[in-house]
């Protein structure tokens, strides 16, 4: 069976189907994170006392991870641009860098943030601040893991599609890049909300 509109634009939407699909998915993700951000605002505004993020969390580590994710957004766009210029070798290099940066983010998050906090008994049950911190950043970290799995597949076995259907493969990279950007932009909002305010 031939799946329609994987490459060509669907006349009624003006997009190929995967792009419409990823935007519908990202819209549902906005609602998920939006709900949690609302919970954070309500918990904070309703609390008689609240921690100052910069005193409880490590601002240098948060800043480093922000830099890592911004850089990974640049590399994922470069991987897409390399494919547009028919350079699979460069695509592999940039996508590999994106995966590496995602892994750096996760390792720093777990080793230098989660583990010391758990050791100091700063766990979700100790205060609402840590409850919302772990929920928001944990859910975000799960999204990074999801992105790494998809990007890893597209870097490795999935890249064989470049030989059989390069246009569809290029579209897949664009869709994966859109998801990765969404994950990164969530962090751009999480960082000041949790670490600075």
């Amino acid at each position: 069976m031939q799946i329609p509109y994987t490459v060509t634009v669907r006349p009624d939407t003006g997009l190929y189907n995967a792009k419409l699909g990823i935007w519908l998915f990202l819209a549902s993700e906005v609602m998920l994170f939006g709900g949690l951000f609302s919970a954070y605002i309500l918990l904070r505004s309703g609390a008689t006392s609240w921690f100052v993020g910069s005193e409880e969390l490590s601002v240098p580590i948060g800043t480093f991870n922000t830099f890592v994710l911004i850089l990974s957004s640049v590399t994922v766009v470069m991987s897409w641009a390399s494919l547009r210029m028919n350079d699979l070798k460069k695509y592999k290099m940039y996508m590999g860098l994106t995966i590496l940066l995602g892994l750096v983010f996760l390792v720093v998050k777990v080793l230098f943030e989660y583990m010391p906090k758990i050791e100091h008994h700063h766990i979700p049950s100790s205060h609402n601040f840590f409850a919302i911190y772990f929920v928001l950043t944990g859910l975000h970290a799960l999204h990074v893991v999801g992105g790494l799995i998809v990007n890893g597949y597209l870097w490795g076995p999935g890249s064989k599609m470049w030989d059989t259907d390069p246009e569809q493969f290029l579209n897949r990279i664009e869709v994966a890049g859109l998801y990765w950007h969404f994950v990164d932009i969530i962090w751009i909002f999480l960082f000041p909300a949790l670490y600075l305010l």
Partner: protein
Amino acid sequence: MSLKAFHLAFISVSTIMAFGFGAWTLMEDNGNYILYGFLSFFAGVGLIVYGIRFLKKFREVSYL
């Protein structure tokens, strides 16, 4: 919205965040993060330069 358009939106938000973080470090009472603040201002300028270069390089790519 294409990856090009989303990337430009992301760079814009990141630039605002970089300058905002820089301003936050200046307003901090203890001044612990002033070095990070200056680095953040430089990063903000770097992101603007990068965004303009990206826009020029991908002029022919659709925003949709």
